[in-house]
């Protein structure tokens, strides 16, 4: 997994890439998120456009990101989901937890 961090219009965008699966560095998302939260960031978008693969551990990481943000009064929204990731969120009913947007810009505007 790769994680890029950029600021856009006051929103922190975490761009994930590659496989978000067990054993392929699912810690990175947490680390980067914790770093941003500790800087006081409250608006976070996770861009999943470049994610080729996600498994149950990866879904767990997204959920953990969501809850640790919430504890700090921050919000995590998802953007740019591929069909596969979208299907997985539907199947697991995590689509009822996350706000999801077709693009990063839409997610940013929604704050």
């Amino acid at each position, binding site marked *: 997994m790769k994680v890029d961090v950029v600021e856009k219009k006051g929103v922190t965008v975490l761009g994930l890439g590659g496989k978000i699966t067990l*054993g392929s560095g699912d810690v990175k998302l947490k680390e980067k998120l914790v770093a941003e939260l500790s800087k006081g960031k409250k608006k976070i978008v996770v861009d999943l456009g470049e994610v080729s693969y996600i*498994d*149950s551990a990866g879904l767990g990481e997204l*959920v953990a990101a969501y809850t640790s943000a919430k504890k700090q009064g921050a919000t995590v929204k998802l953007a740019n989901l591929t069909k596969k990731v979208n299907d997985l969120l539907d199947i697991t009913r995590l689509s*009822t937890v996350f706000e999801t947007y077709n693009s990063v810009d839409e997610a940013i505007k929604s704050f």
Partner: protein
Amino acid sequence: MKEGLSKISMQFFSNLFMTDFSEEFFRLSLSKTKISEERVDWVALSLREAVNNAIIHGNKNNPKKKVEVEIEFLDEAIYIRVWDEGKGFDPSTLTDPTKDENLLQPHGRGIFLIKQFVNKVEFICRNNGFGIELMVDLRK
């Protein structure tokens, strides 16, 4: 299938980097079948979940304990079995991750996902270990 592959199996020591490897094997062995690419993707995810569970829960990441993946090709079905050297678990204790009260749990979605993407799941306890059997019905 009578003209081709009948069975493949692989044994490896518990190490999470073998999950990618077992997926590659699985994909290669299915590359000559008529199963749709999308279905292969979802079944591959089920296999990953089963292999990860075998390594982590079954063998407790002990690199001396082995995992075995077996894929059997029949005319009407493919059977995937993942064996570990652990004691298994009681499937009746599994919780439903889609229930509202479980939605924010970071764990507990592996077996649930497996069940979504294959046509039958069986848990098998044997003397020297535990296995999960996934059936992919080729008539569906």
